[in-house]
């Protein structure tokens, strides 16, 4: 042990040494700097390096691609369901299989597509947007991705092995309980929840800290891009809501595996406990999916209308208030369960109130178009499609917020129409728009404009054809989750139209994928800032270098790239011989700490494998909790155990 005389002396020695270290700045910049940074930040080559990477851009890309693959898979299930429902008393798909189909469709879309894809986009773009070199906790970020991947694979492999869940994505007890769901189908579903919760919560913490602590100097909260604001709110919502479903599904598993009585109303439990816990998560979930999309819309509108979003503070406030209100609405999923009627009125009021912030946001976007010079490029078309479609969904939402109306419409195809208008119109349209928008930044090439426009119209019209008739199917008395319906109720026509529309949408999505793949090789090469946008992710090359920015930019307004005169102000002095990022203060974003960035490591991957084995085996034996926890603990310790101090004078945690 070489104990120094005192810590003070040690500090002075370090301070002296520091002066010698190579840092970016006037003396060291341009190609020379970029070469050295590239050297420092590159990840080890080969398959191991691929697994060990902590680069937020790689992880974000994997997140997005995986989520889109799950979207495709879930879409295929939807087509199968539409085929079965194309005509009355159809026998194409049996009851059991159909129940598995809609369970898989719902679970895949909610847990394996919608939330992860938003997180993926954020993980990729947020660090660029706030002008830093890495996310906070990049290893946790990698871990989050692998947990998500394994959860999804488990669900789909189980489905392929005919152990797919058949209890609906909401898994109401007692139907999902030990007596009425024999076998392991329900456990597979519940454990998939655990996987995706762990992943989503990790990603939420990563984004939360990245947005609060790593913003470029001068990017005060009041200058933060609206997408960053949306993701900040979403991260907090995830942190508060997802523990609820994790708790509920753990209780379900223990009911099924070790005979606890949480949901058994004959042993002082209560079947409704599940619904309360599930919807306390389930309703915020909808906004967790929707708010990032509003961020997309703000980004696109700003760029293509050449105007900062109108009434920025109002938009921020409505994001925050939506996030808060979302936790007060869950009971409106339970209007038919016979809870006290008077209590319902409160939730009706709350459910209607949540429409106000959204309405204000919509006004702000429209006002931005009014003020600006809108250009109808493909991303902008998707924004228009978003408004035309989402507003319908929002208004039907107001309709079903009313108790007397909901009692008729609840669990009918009217609801199916409503939430597809909200989720596809409100989240998927902006997502497609933002993919087109950020595609050049991610790949360095532009997507085909012509194909893009055809595609938009196919998706948009196909969607209306598929889902508008469902409103009528519901009003004509078609309940959800039925694998067939009798002739003579007037349901034939709406269902047929929906099926046709579904196939139009599917082919359009296929075209989108084709466009994406072709443009990857044939697309026009993109400049650093092809859209002439205002935010920092466009201040670096497309695709960005592994270290994102050669110098950390300084922000002086809400639209830095529009307001800079000629040159972009930057701060200097980060190490180039070692991975380092700049921490700033939470509100004012003044430089605070030079944070060493962890090296690439295999341990996050190994840990996720260990935890995965732990989770899956605990479906089959309660003892897995014991023997599964040990390897997980070892992996986590190895993950956090720092290497020997090899780089004086500034040892780096890694």
């Amino acid at each position, binding site marked *: 042990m070489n104990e120094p005389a005192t810590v003070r002396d040690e500090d002075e020695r370090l301070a002296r040494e520091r002066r010698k270290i190579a840092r970016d700045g006037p003396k060291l910049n341009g190609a020379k700097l970029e070469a050295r940074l590239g050297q420092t930040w590159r990840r080890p080559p080969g398959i191991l390096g691929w697994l060990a990477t902590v680069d937020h851009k790689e992880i974000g890309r994997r997140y997005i691609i995986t989520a889109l693959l799950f979207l495709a898979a879930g879409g295929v299930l939807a087509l199968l369901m539409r085929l079965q429902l194309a005509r009355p008393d159809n026998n194409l798909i049996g*009851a*059991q299989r159909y*129940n598995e189909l809609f369970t898989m469709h719902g679970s895949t879309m909610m847990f394996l597509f919608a939330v992860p894809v938003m997180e993926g986009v954020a993980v990729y773009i947020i660090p660029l947007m706030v002008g830093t070199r890495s996310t906070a906790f990049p290893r946790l970020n990698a871990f989050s991705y692998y947990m998500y991947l394994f959860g999804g694979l488990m669900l789909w492999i189980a489905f392929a092995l005919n152990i797919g869940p058949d209890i609906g994505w909401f898994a*109401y007890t*007692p*139907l999902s309980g030990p007596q*009425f769901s024999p076998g392991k189908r329900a456990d597979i579903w519940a454990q998939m929840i655990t996987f995706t919760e762990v992943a989503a919560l990790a990603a939420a913490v990563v984004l939360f800290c990245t947005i609060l602590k790593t913003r470029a100097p001068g990017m005060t909260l009041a200058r933060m891009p609206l997408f960053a604001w949306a993701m900040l709110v979403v991260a907090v919502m995830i942190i508060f809501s997802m523990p609820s479903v994790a708790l509920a599904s753990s209780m379900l598993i223990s009911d099924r595996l070790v005979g606890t009585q949480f949901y058994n*109303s004959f042993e002082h439990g*209560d*079947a409704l406990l599940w619904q309360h816990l599930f919807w306390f998560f389930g309703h915020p979930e909808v906004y967790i999916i929707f708010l990032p999309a509003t961020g997309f819309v703000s980004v696109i509108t700003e760029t293509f209308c*050449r*105007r*900062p979003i109108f*009434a920025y503070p109002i938009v921020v406030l409505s994001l925050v208030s939506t996030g808060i209100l979302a936790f007060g609405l869950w009971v409106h999923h339970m209007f*038919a*369960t*016979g809870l006290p009627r008077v209590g*319902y009125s409160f939730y*009706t009021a709350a459910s209607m109130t949540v429409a106000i912030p959204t309405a*204000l946001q*919509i*006004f*702000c976007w*429209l*006002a931005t*178009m*009014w003020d*600006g*010079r*809108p*250009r*109808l490029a493909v991303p902008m078309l998707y924004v228009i499609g978003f408004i*035309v479609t989402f507003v*319908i969904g929002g*208004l039907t939402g*107001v309709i079903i*917020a*009313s108790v*007397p*109306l909901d*009692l*008729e419409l609840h*669990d009918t195809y009217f609801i199916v129409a409503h939430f597809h208008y909200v989720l596809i119109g409100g989240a998927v349209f902006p997502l497609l728009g933002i993919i087109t928008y950020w595609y050049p930044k991610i790949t360095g090439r532009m997507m085909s404009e012509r194909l893009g426009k055809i595609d938009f119209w196919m998706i948009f019209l196909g969607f*209306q*054809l598929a889902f*508008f*008739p469902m409103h*009528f199917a519901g*009003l*004509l*008395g078609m*309940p959800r*989750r039925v694998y067939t319906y009798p002739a*003579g*109720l*007037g349901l034939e*026509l709406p269902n047929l*139209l929906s099926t046709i529309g579904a196939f139009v949408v599917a082919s359009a999505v296929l075209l989108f994928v084709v466009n994406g793949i072709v443009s990857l090789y044939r697309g026009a090469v993109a400049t650093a800032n092809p859209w*002439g946008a205002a935010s920092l992710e466009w201040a670096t090359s497309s695709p960005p270098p592994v270290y994102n920015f050669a110098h950390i930019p300084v922000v002086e307004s809400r639209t830095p790239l*529009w307001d800079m005169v000629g040159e972009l102000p930057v701060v200097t002095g980060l190490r180039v011989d070692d991975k380092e990022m700049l921490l700033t203060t939470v509100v004012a974003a003044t430089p605070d700490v030079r944070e060493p960035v962890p090296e690439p490591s295999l341990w996050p991957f190994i840990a996720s494998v260990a935890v995965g084995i732990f989770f899956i085996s605990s479906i089959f034996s309660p003892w897995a909790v014991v023997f599964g926890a040990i390897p997980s603990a070892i992996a986590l310790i190895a993950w956090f155990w720092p290497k020997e101090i090899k780089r004086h004078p500034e040892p780096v945690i890694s």
Partner: protein
Amino acid sequence: MRRRAGALVALLPLLGACSYQHYQSAFGNAAVEARQFNILFVIFLVVCATMYLAVIGFLIAGLMRRRRTGNANVIEDRRHHESDPLMRSGLIGWAALVGSGLVALAIASFVADRSMAGAAAHEQLSITLTANQWWWDAQYNAADSSKTFHTANELHLPVGVPVRILLNSNDVIHSFWVPSLAGKQDLIPGRQNDISITPRKVGLFRGQCAEFCGAQHAHMALVVEVESYADFLKWWRHQLQPAPSPATPLALAGYNFVTGRNCSACHAIGGTPAGGTVGPDLTHFASRRSIAAGTMAMSTGNLYGWVADPQALKPGTKMPTIGLEPDQLHAVVAYLETLQ
């Protein structure tokens, strides 16, 4: 253009609906409760449509006002932070408009809700409806227990008489929903819910379980016949009668099989040894309109099919495929058809 397409799509199913006499439609308007729904729905529809038109109008105006063509992405120097003062007042106006609209709707909804609760006060007929996977057991309650009886998958209600239906479940959560009469109410094991209905139209209405309840959720329907008070009394008295004894030798053979063999393990038939409680009560089975909770219409052919192989027609139903010999099948069907 896109909205015209939407309207077109909207129209077609509507026509399809009108041609159909609201057998299972929420617009059936056949009870006080359903009427409440219709009025309220129209109010909401009008308000929401107005809001929607406002948004779309503003959208089109905003897009057309200073639309750019071509691919130039330049920003207008030092003007890109300006905004039309009109918009500031517009924002306030918009907030006020949306707020007041929502308040109006909330009040309308609340009033409707209260008035329904009020209607529930004084019922004159009480029915206990118990849901099973996947059929409905109905018990018509009466003060004197000899006057209570069971029937299944078919309710008869007198027009204009407030009826209170008590809702229980024997297994999982189901939901009672007859769209033309009233909104839905869940049947939850270990809890008792209830729903009040005051029919205002004579007619035949179909209902269906509205909460996913397992494999055959799609085949868990029930028929509600609303009839004049006299007809209802006639039906009610008839239901109290035991099953008629078999007349023909074939029916007698069927009687012997039904009461002596598998059937009686699950089904009860009033006035016979058959006293099972697992399946629907068959006392007046043949007088009902459908077989197996709305899976198929009551007809000799369907009855043959159902008795011969229920698992083929409603896979997973609790009723087993017994594998009857042809003569047994003939006899059983013959007997069942006497259960008027």
